[in-house]
């Protein structure tokens, strides 16, 4: 038991995590490519044309996985943040910092494709639908996190301040989501749900799940690349970074 703990803490140091991440990155890129190819193939060629929505609906194969990922990444970010505050490990803060831009990107893709989807479906680029609105607020939360970290010069302070914000945010995300939903039903706005289509074909669900896996692998690969860059940046003054072959050149 204690052996295992020591083993895990070994990888909590940036020095030992850096090469490990370097080894993992190609694998995650490969998985991204495989899942992406299968997912796109299903979504473009296998999934049937929707009776009501025509071909335009196919954007949900991007839209839904992106929305899922944007929420999931926020949870993971908050988990790293909490771990960093509790155990005072430096890598946790770096992971949270590395995840934030990807999460923001996912939220942005979700909003953007939502608008693209809304135009042919509802005839307007934007509706104050509960999902879109809470996604927008989630996007703001990401931007706030990134802005706070960017505004603080001392990286350790930036990590801790960001961690507190992420934890406050993660408590608030469900509250915001339900309040927006409540607001939406009260105003009886356009609450057209993509999941409500009468018979969502099995193949569509599979397509979305595989695309979600693709996005997931992509997020991990990109976050690992970013965390490597952050490690190099913060540890420039240490001996082990100066000894790295890629730095020596």
């Amino acid at each position, binding site marked *: 038991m204690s052996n295992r703990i020591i083993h895990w803490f070994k990888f909590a140091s940036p020095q030992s995590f850096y090469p490990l991440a370097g080894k993992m990155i190609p694998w995650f890129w490969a998985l991204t490519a495989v899942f992406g190819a299968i997912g796109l193939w299903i979504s473009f060629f296998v999934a049937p044309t929707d009776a009501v929505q025509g071909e335009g609906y196919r954007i949900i194969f991007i839209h839904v996985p992106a929305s899922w990922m944007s929420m999931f990444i926020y949870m993971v970010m908050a988990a790293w943040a909490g771990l960093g505050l509790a155990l005072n490990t430096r890598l946790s803060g770096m992971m949270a910092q590395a995840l934030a831009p990807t999460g923001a990107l996912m939220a942005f893709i979700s909003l953007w494709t939502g608008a693209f989807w809304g135009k042919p479906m509802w005839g307007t680029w934007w509706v104050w639908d509960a999902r879109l609105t809470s996604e927008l607020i989630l996007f703001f939360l990401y931007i706030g996190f990134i802005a706070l970290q960017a505004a603080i*010069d*001392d*990286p350790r302070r930036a990590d801790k301040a960001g961690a507190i914000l992420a934890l406050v945010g993660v408590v608030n995300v469900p509250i915001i989501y339900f309040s927006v939903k409540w607001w939406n039903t009260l105003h009886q706005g356009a609450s057209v749900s993509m999941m409500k289509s009468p018979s969502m074909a099995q193949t569509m669900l599979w397509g979305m799940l595989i695309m979600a896996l693709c996005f997931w692998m992509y997020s991990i690969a990109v976050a690992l690349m970013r965390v490597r860059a952050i490690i190099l940046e*913060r540890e420039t*003054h240490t001996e082990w970074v100066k000894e790295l072959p890629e730095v020596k050149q």
Partner: protein
Amino acid sequence: MPFDPGNSRKAGFDAGFLFRTPISGTIRPSMLSVSDLSCIRGERRLFSGLGFDLAPGEWLHVQGENGSGKTTLLRALVGLSPPAEGEIIWRGEPTHRLGEDYRREMLYLGHHGAVKEELTPLENLKLAAALDGRSLDDREAMAALHRFGLKGREELPVRFLSAGQKRRVLLARLVTRNAVLWVLDEPFTALDVKAVDMLSALIGEHLADGGLAVLTSHQPMPIPGGKVARL
């Protein structure tokens, strides 16, 4: 193993109390002891492996160039910014575990004014005491202000006072607070000759009473004795 921090803390307190009156010739056990301390500011290591012991009645003069980490050391000592490595032991227990019990016995005056410009010296002193959970009557507060030559200025908002007078308002807290450990960052800045004499006399009294002090200063200190930590 059962461990009762409250109990052992009490024992430590009693021991310290006994040694408050220094007996010449005996070895006094240290009340504040720092070992293997290192501090990092940003990504730069300011100092490492720093250690010292202070017994009741002793004081430490922290010396060093600008930017050598004097203020960082004091801030680590009082618990504002935790050190990267090392332990700070007060009455036999690490300060981060003592928390409020340590802060009750310690007074830190940084190079900030730490007084409210809109309030009068009297209000400043009384409110500062109230925030520490102590009550301070007018007479005591007045006496402290008078000691620092602020007679006639007690009811004037601090913003009308000069820099040196503001500093004196802050230093009056040394008298009213009853702390055992004084941690003072550049206490002699902005003070005139008379005030420097007053302050060094006050520190002398504090040490004679069995108090401890840690000071930074660029000038040679007008207080006899003292250990030196050079950063």
